[in-house]
């Protein structure tokens, strides 16, 4: 009998796994179970053009809704998986259905962190942004002239700020840390993005100590700061990060710590259980990391499909990421975690620039703002494990394409020993 592969969570990673799996023509039967009532969709537009009303809902879906059944996949959308029983290799859904698996793939993603109810996190008018349903609920509230308060200066908060400005809202953004993007980027990138938002009329407050949200008539009315100041707001968006959905794995006895730990083939400590996407953590450059990106979800989903069909592979894809804010295209190649120094390369115009991250003398990541060539050639150079000097990349006269080609042709020169 054909093997059954059960996939829990119907998001980006699951869609990628299924696409590759079906293309490989594997015999195994797939059963996809997802808590959201809709087939897998792209989340990036949620804070960008979908929030702006510029992208129709249908265009969010990664595959047409009928595609899954057409591929012979059993689907259960709108169904939460409640538990995994590893000894009998079964899962139990919220409806009490029991489904047996030969292999299990966890693609449970992550959940937006909420502000605790004791601080006003549950008040009407307070939103988080993770799902299509979240945006569909909040979008009607994004009306010109209203005051939006955003808590958290990460990518999602900043993208929502940009969308809200375009829609004519007044936006204030509070960041607890010293600077926006502190967790993910160097000060040079934060400075650039801060200026971008300020010039578009967003009030950004960093090192902002908020005490709690305040209410009037049963709805959020603003935030009370530690120094007693009150910032008025008609609506509040909480963008204070996301946590990996590990409950299911933990309950099944898989040790989790900021993600479900997987090895270099996305296998958990149970050899029949794999995991992919936002919910995983894995070793990269000697550190355990957890990524929240389309790249990681797609590449890990892809890899699991290949591994399960017998291909000998290891996960070593180069991380990349993008974020669109106003007319600024931010593109990131590599992973800056653990950097020891940075160098800034000026772009061709005053609105373009790139930050290059080094760990000692190794180039590990690039943040490119309106500078696709820094992104594209930076990505090529990093992927080839080449390390141009900081002086070279910082010099605006260095032609990055030529530099990449030169460094990479060194790599491709045939080794006489082979």
């Amino acid at each position, binding site marked *: 009998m054909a093997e059954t592969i059960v996939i829990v969570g119907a998001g980006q990673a699951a869609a990628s796994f299924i696409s590759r799996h079906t293309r490989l023509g594997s015999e195994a039967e797939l059963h996809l179970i997802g808590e959201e009532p809709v087939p897998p969709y792209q989340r*990036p537009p949620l804070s960008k053009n979908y929030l702006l009303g510029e992208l129709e809902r249908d*265009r969010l879906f990664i*595959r047409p809704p009928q595609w899954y059944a057409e591929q012979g996949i059993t689907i259960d959308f709108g169904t939460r998986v409640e538990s995994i029983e590893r000894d009998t290799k079964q899962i139990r859904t919220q409806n009490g259905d029991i489904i047996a698996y030969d292999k299990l793939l966890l693609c449970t993603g992550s959940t937006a962190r909420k502000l605790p109810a004791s601080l006003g996190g549950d008040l009407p008018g307070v939103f988080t942004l993770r799902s299509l349903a979240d945006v569909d609920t909040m979008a009607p509230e994004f009306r010109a002239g209203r005051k939006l308060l955003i808590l958290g200066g990460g990518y999602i908060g900043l993208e929502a700020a940009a969308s809200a400005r375009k829609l004519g809202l007044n936006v204030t953004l509070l960041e607890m840390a010293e600077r926006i993007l502190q967790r993910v980027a160097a000060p040079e990138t934060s400075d650039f993005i801060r200026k971008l938002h300020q010039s578009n009329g967003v009030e950004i407050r960093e090192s902002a100590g908020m005490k709690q949200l305040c209410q009037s008539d049963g709805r959020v009315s603003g935030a009370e700061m530690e120094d007693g100041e009150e910032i008025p707001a008609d609506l509040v968006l909480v963008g204070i990060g996301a946590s990996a959905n590990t409950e299911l794995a933990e309950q099944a006895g898989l040790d989790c710590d900021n993600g479900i730990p997987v090895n270099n083939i996305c296998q958990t400590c149970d050899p029949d259980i794999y995991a992919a996407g936002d919910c995983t953590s894995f070793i990269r450059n000697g550190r355990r990391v957890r990524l929240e990106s389309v790249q990681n979800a*797609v590449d890990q989903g892809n890899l699991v499909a290949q591994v399960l069909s017998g291909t000998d592979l290891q996960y070593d894809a180069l991380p990349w990421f*993008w974020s669109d804010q106003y007319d600024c295209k931010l593109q990131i190649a590599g992973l800056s975690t653990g950097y020891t120094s940075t160098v800034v390369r000026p772009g061709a115009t005053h609105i373009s620039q790139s930050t290059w991250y080094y760990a000692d003398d190794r180039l590990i990541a690039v943040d490119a703002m309106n500078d*696709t060539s820094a992104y*594209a050639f930076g990505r090529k150079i990093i992927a080839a494990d080449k390390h141009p000097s900081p002086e070279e990349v910082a010099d605006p006269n260095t032609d990055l394409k030529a530099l990449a080609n030169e460094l990479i042709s060194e790599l491709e020169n045939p080794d006489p020993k082979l």
Partner: protein
Amino acid sequence: MANITWKMEDGSEISADVNDGLNLMEAATSNNVPNIEGECGGCLSCATCHVFVDQDWFAKTGEIDDIEDTMLDMTDVERRDNSRLSCQITASPELEGLVLYVPEP
């Protein structure tokens, strides 16, 4: 609407009627064209929507801007003179009968 054909290296092909305004990466993924991933959703950050355009049609698919031109330098299969990122081609009646070749890594 335009009828678009994608030709694969193994000789197989897929044709579909594509509504005006959709880009041809979306059209490809919704018609299960293999090897067109469209990971970034069409925002010029992934180059996974690379196609070769039939020479006779190339001019009709529109201009390549600087960003697309740069991103074409990082496709999996090396770019050629008739390379495009298909997320940057928008379906319109003028493209009726367009043929795209899908590179295979």
